[in-house]
Structure formats: structure tokens, C-alpha cells
């Protein structure tokens, strides 16, 4: 059974509308490890050895975060910069993470049509995840199809958001139980909650 760890990064946790709920939901899933990065490193002083040990002792890394300026919140970026060291995660002799898997669970405030050539964000959300995808690739980590929520702030979208949150625990359980196939994401694809709903009972 793959061992799952969820890294959660949200500096405005208290004001969060969907991420906090997702995080709460993740807390109800048994048998996985949860790390609130901003709670553990409020002063950005990351314990590199401890984080590397965590990576070694888990098989699937879930990164849950809101998209800030088309990227991860700064602490998660700091975490990547420090923990994914040369000689550990990549480069000469840097094969410690080969064969592991990375699952991105991202939320975006903009609606789906904003993430289109005609929308104000001009590119699909999936494109903004390329730095993470390439990071995984360089570390020989399998980049799984990202689980994404568009329009995370829209009040009239409530049902849609709740569906997304509910299926998040299904995703985590699926990863834990080996029901989600750990294979490389196809280009340009995102994971929809409905797909996960259909996965139930597999």
C-alpha cells in the first residue's frame, strides 16, 4: 500500500473558503500523514533533514495549496528550494525520490473560462502547473493528474465547491488504498471530481 503524505500550504488559512474545508476533510482520512507547512514553519525555518526523511518514508506526496500569482504560496516554494537538494532529489547521485508520486491539489479563484486563451488569465490552469510537473520529472517522481478547483470563491458555485471538497477525501483514500493508478499525467489534463466519484468502490 502506498504511504501518503499531504503537504498543505495556505498562509491565510483563517480566511480560506475552500482550502480550509478540504484540509478539514483530509484530517478525517485515516492512515495518511498530514503536514500544515505554515503551522510547522511559521518563521520559514525549514528543517531540511526532517523533511527529507518524511519524503523517504512516504510514496505519494500530495501538495494542497491555493494558486497565488500563478504559483505556489511562498513557503511551499521555499520548501522546494531547500528540501529538494542537489545530490538528494536530483543531479549526481540524486535519486532518493525516484519512483515516488506527486499529486497536486490546487484551487484557483478564477472561473474555468478565465483560464482560456480568451479569458483574462490567457492560459489553462494546467499550464501554470508546469514548473511543478517539471520539478517532479527532474526528480524522477511520477506527476499524477492534478486535482483542480476553479472559481473557488464564487458563492453561487457552492454546490460545485462542496462536491470538489467531498471528493478530495475520496482521492486521498484512493491514493492510500492503491485505487488511483500511479501513472504519469497526460498533457493538458485535470482530474475532475466526477471522475473520482465514479472511482468509488473500484
Amino acid at each position, binding site marked *: 500500500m502506498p504511504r501518503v503524505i499531504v503537504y498543505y500550504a*495556505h*498562509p*491565510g*488559512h*483563517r480566511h480560506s473558503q475552500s482550502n480550509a474545508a478540504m484540509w478539514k476533510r483530509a484530517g478525517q482520512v485515516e492512515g495518511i500523514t498530514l503536514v500544515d507547512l505554515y*503551522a510547522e514553519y511559521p518563521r520559514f525555518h525549514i528543517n531540511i533533514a526532517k523533511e527529507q526523511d518524511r519524503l523517504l518514508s512516504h510514496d505519494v506526496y500530495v501538495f494542497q495549496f491555493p494558486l*497565488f500569482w500563478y504559483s505556489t504560496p511562498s513557503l511551499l516554494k521555499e520548501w522546494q528550494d531547500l528540501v529538494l537538494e542537489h545530490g538528494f532529489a536530483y543531479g549526481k547521485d540524486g535519486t532518493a525520490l525516484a519512483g515516488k508520486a506527486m499529486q497536486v491539489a490546487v484551487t484557483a479563484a478564477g472561473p474555468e473560462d*478565465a483560464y482560456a486563451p480568451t479569458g*483574462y488569465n490567457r492560459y489553462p490552469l494546467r499550464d501554470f502547473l508546469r514548473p511543478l510537473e517539471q520539478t517532479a520529472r527532474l526528480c524522477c517522481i511520477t506527476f499524477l493528474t492534478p486535482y483542480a478547483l476553479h472559481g473557488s*470563491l464564487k458563492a453561487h458555485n457552492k454546490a460545485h465547491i462542496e462536491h470538489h471538497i467531498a471528493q478530495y477525501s475520496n482521492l486521498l483514500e484512493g491514493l492510500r488504498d492503491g485505487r488511483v493508478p500511479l501513472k504519469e499525467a497526460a498533457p493538458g489534463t485535470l482530474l475532475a471530481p466526477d471522475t473520482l466519484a465514479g472511482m468509488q468502490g473500484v
Partner: protein
Amino acid sequence: MDFLSLAFLFLIAGVVAVPIATRFGLGSVLGFLIAGIALGPVLAAFRVDVVSLQHFAEFGVVMMLFLVGLELEPKLLWRMKTRLLGLGGLQVGLTALAVMAAGIALGLYWTIALALGLVFALSSTAIVLQTLNEKGLMRSDGGQAGFSVLLFQDIAVIPMLALIPLLAMPELMDHATAVAVPNAAHGAEVSVPVEDGHGVEASGDHAPEGPGWIETIPGWQRALITVAAIAAVILGGSMLTRPLFRFVAVAQMRELFTATALLMVVGIALLMNHVGLSPALGTFLAGVVLANSEYRHELESDIDPFRGMLLGLFFMTVGAGIDFLLLWEDLWMIVSLTLGLMVLKAGILYGLGLIFRVRGADRWLLSMGLAQAGEFGFVLLSFTTASHVIPQSVADVALLVVALSMLLTPALFILYDRVVAPRFSLAQADEPDQIDEEAPIIIAGHGRFGGIVNRMLLGAGYRTVVLDHNSAQLRMMRAFNFKVFFGDASRPDLLHAAGIENAKLLVVAIDDRQQTNEIVHHVIQNYQHVHVIARARSRDHVYELWAAGCRDVIRETFDSGVRAGRSAFEAMGMHPFEAERMAQGFVDHDRRVIRELADLYRNDIPIHENEPYIRRSLELREETDGAMLSGRGAYSVQFDKAWSPPVGRDEGEEADEQCRRDAEARGAEDA
């Protein structure tokens, strides 16, 4: 002339002449020399014995070498050995031979020429070290090379004293005893300026090699006694100093430390004197032994004023001792002899500088700085006449040459400063910085606060000088191998001894509030280049330090209080990152308030009577209260806005449209 009038005369000459000379960039040495020249006729009129005064003042040289020793750890001395023996030895040997050759060419008998060679080979430790220190050149390569040479010369005086009587010429005997005795009264003491009575007895007819009794015992015993004396200085210095000072510290009297320091120096000089060694060498050794001791800076600041006064007196006597009558008579001869000697000495030093790889401006510093003859030259001259090696007439001329060359030295240093150094400053820019021997960081107070600062700095590889006046604290720190020095940091002279002139940073971490203010004020007023970090005991203290000009004030319990507050937030269930932000918000707010109130604080009015202060702090309190009531918390954290749009909806579309409209409008305008 009675003692008080004499003291008054010298003091007023020094106090008037030195500041004037310094203002014109001539340096204190030239100031003292000029003061001495001005005093000359007055002293002559009152029949003051300038020569014996000079010998008394030479004790300043002994003290200076003690201080030089204090700055030289044994390790450093060992590193200097090549230069000390090689450069120093060659300088003395070659100069003596060259002067001897010149003397023979001028028609002097070879023994006289050799004796003059030895006299002129020596340079002036007093002038050179004083000037190098004053100009901050002591740690340059040229300064270090010069110091090696001077140290070798000081040591070389001892064998010279043994050698000179062997050059005695029988035909000078009768003539010389008649003429030279008054002048030679002190020859016996040689570099032993302490008046002990022996000198006068020993001078005159028999070779005066130090006090009488040591002459009377066989050579091997003398050697043994010499070794024993040196061993006593080294062992006593390293083992007895600490218990002695601890014993003295019980009396809790600052002056007693000064007395003890003086006692040490005088005692060592006396001991060396009795076994026929140079007291300068003895105290230098004691200084080196104590260089690692925690009392080093205390000793330095205690002895330094005496050294300064005595050297000043010494320079004045040199100025006063110039025999202008003889000078005018043979002006051209004496001036050309002096210039010839200085060119010769500088040339030899320059050549040696090439061999020993002293580069660029430093080589010029070495050769120009040490081109003069020195105070030991006076001593040797009176000794040579007393030993019937040189006739009085030659000695008188030589004496003038020595004095004149010393008088010209400050001029050479000015020449170096204005002409030579600027030319090399560009060329030298590429070379790596000189490693400073003094630590660039001084920490005053090594308790709970300063100790942490020191540990952090040392851990990061910085070098620090720590001053503390708590003996118990000191003993404990020494047990843990920290380098700490005993002393009351509020004394300006101790800060000076710790190297405040060359420091980059001063951390004031002593307990006493008043003393902290004094140090901060003193350093900020006098050493603008030093960054001062001061520990504040309380809020009011912050204002006082701010008023004193300190801009890096750290409240000693503020940070720990903030951390405790943050822990309290977390204990109450606040998200740690939010707790951190709240704490930072509080810190920013409090800093802003204290910064604003610092300008309203008045040192002369108690806070409860300071109207503007009270008014503004009430206003500020209302502001925070208002913010708290508005629900955002008193120290509202601005960042939250960035992490969550406050209205809870996506505004990207509107923003994008706004942006496009603006761009179109701009385009229309352009068209």
C-alpha cells in the same frame, strides 16, 4: 629650579605646542621636540640638568616596550622571527659597517668609526612607534617590519655595551676622564634610566657594564643569574600576575590596579638593571607573557598615560638638548653629516626591504621611518666617551647628528604621508586586506546578554574583544576558554586599549544604565565610524540611548516578551503562522510608537510632566483601542488582504476589464 616649577614649565610647553603641531598635521612627536627647543634657553638659564632628566624620561621607552609586548602574543612574536633576526640583524650589521667605512674614509681611527657605526645603526624606537601608532600604520607590513628591526636594535644594545669597552683607546684615557665624566655620569646605567646610585659610582674609570656586584662574580655564574632573571620574569608574569591582581581586586580600588601595574614594570626594570640586562627587554618579555592574560587591557590603560607623559618629556629633552651654538658653528658639516647618515640608513633599509619582500609603500615606510638615529644613540654616546672609545669633540658632533636626525623624522613621515603613500594607494588596491590584529568587535559586558551576542559572533567566525569587570564572571568565562579581559568598560582609556579606533562595532551590554549611557555617548561623539548596539533596560532607557545618538537600541526583555505572547496565542488555539503575524504586527506597532515618542522624550523633564509626550501617547492608545473595537485586532495584520479577497469573490474579471479599458484610453490619447 624646584620640582613644581620644572613640572609646570614642561607641562605648559607640551600642552601648548602639541595641539598646535597636531593641528598642522605635524604629529605629537614634532610638537614635543619644538616645545623642547623653545624650552632650551630657559632650562639653560636655570641650569637644569637636561641630560639626567632625559635619562629619567627614557623610562618611558621601557614602558612603551612593555606595552608593545602586551600587544604581541608569543605566537605572533614567533611568526616574526625571520624578520626580527634577518632584517633586524642585517640592518644593524650593514649600517654599522657602512658608517664605519664612511668614518674611516673621513679620516677617523677604525675603533672610533666602528663605535660611531654602532651608535648610528640604532633608530628611535620612541619616535617611530609613537608615530606609527598615531598614524595607524603599526599593523601595516611596513610598520611590522619596522617594529622587527627596532626590537632587534633594542636587544642588540646589550652586546654592544659589552663590545664598546673593548674598543677603548689608551691615549684617550687621560684626556677623556677629565672631560667626559660629567656627561658620563649616566653612562653606567646605559639603557637603565632608573636612578639607583650605582651608575654614578660605576662610571668613570672602570668599564661600566651595569651594577658593580655582577662584575665581581665569574662569567658562568653571571650567565646563570641572567637566565634565572629572565626565567623569573616569564614564570612570574605568567603565574603570579593573576593571583596578584585578584588579591588587589579585593580592595575595590581602581588606583590600586594602576599602582600594581606600575610596580610590576618598575620591579622588572630594577631586576634587569641588577643583573645587567636591558630593562626595556625585560619589560618587553613580561609584556609578551601577559599578552594572553585577561588583565592585558587593564594593564595597557594603566601604564599608557605614564608612557605618554614620560615619552613627551623625553622628546622635549631631546629638543632642549640640541646645542645650537655648536650647530651654528659647523652648520653645514653637521647638516650634511645628518642628511648623509639618513640617506645611508634609508638606502640600506630599502635594499633589505627588497630582499625581505616588503612591498610598495610599505618599503618606503620602513626605509624613511627608520632613517634616523635614536635615543639609545645618546646612551651609547655617553657610554663610549666614558669608556674612552670616542673623544668628546667627536661625540658632541655625533650627539647633534642624532638629535637633528630625530628632529627631521616627523618631516619624513609627513613626506611619506603626502607624497609616497598616495602614489601607492592605487597600486595597492588590488592586494588583499591586511588582517587586523585587533578584533573589529568590542563587547562590553559578558553577562546573560553580552554572552549570547559573543557566542553568536564567535560561532560565525568573528573575532571579538570582551570587557567585563566582574571578576567571578571572568574566571568562569576563562574556564570555558573565552577570551575576556578584565576592566571597567565605561573608562574611555580602556575602550581605547581594546582598540576602539580600529573597531567596526561596539556592543554595550553592561548592567548599569548610567554607565551604558556614558559609553554610548562617548563612542558616538568620538568615533563616528563605530556602529554601536546598546542594550536598553527599559522603555525610558531606549529614549535616553536614542537621545545619545544610538540608532541600534535593543530592549533586553522585549523579544522574549513577544515570544511569550506568541506562545500564548498558539496555546489559545491560534494558527502558528497567524500567531507569528500578530506578533510581528505588535512589534512593528510598538517600534513605531516608541520611535515617535522618542522624539518627544526630554531628558530634563520626568515623563509624567512632559505634556507633549503624554498627549501623543494617549492619542496612540486611542488609535489602537479603535482598531481593536473595529474587530481587526489592535495590531491588524495587513497581509491577510493579499491571501484572501475580502469580499469573497473573484475580482479578476473586473480588474482585467478595467486594465483593458485603461490601455485603450491610453492608446486613444497617444493617437
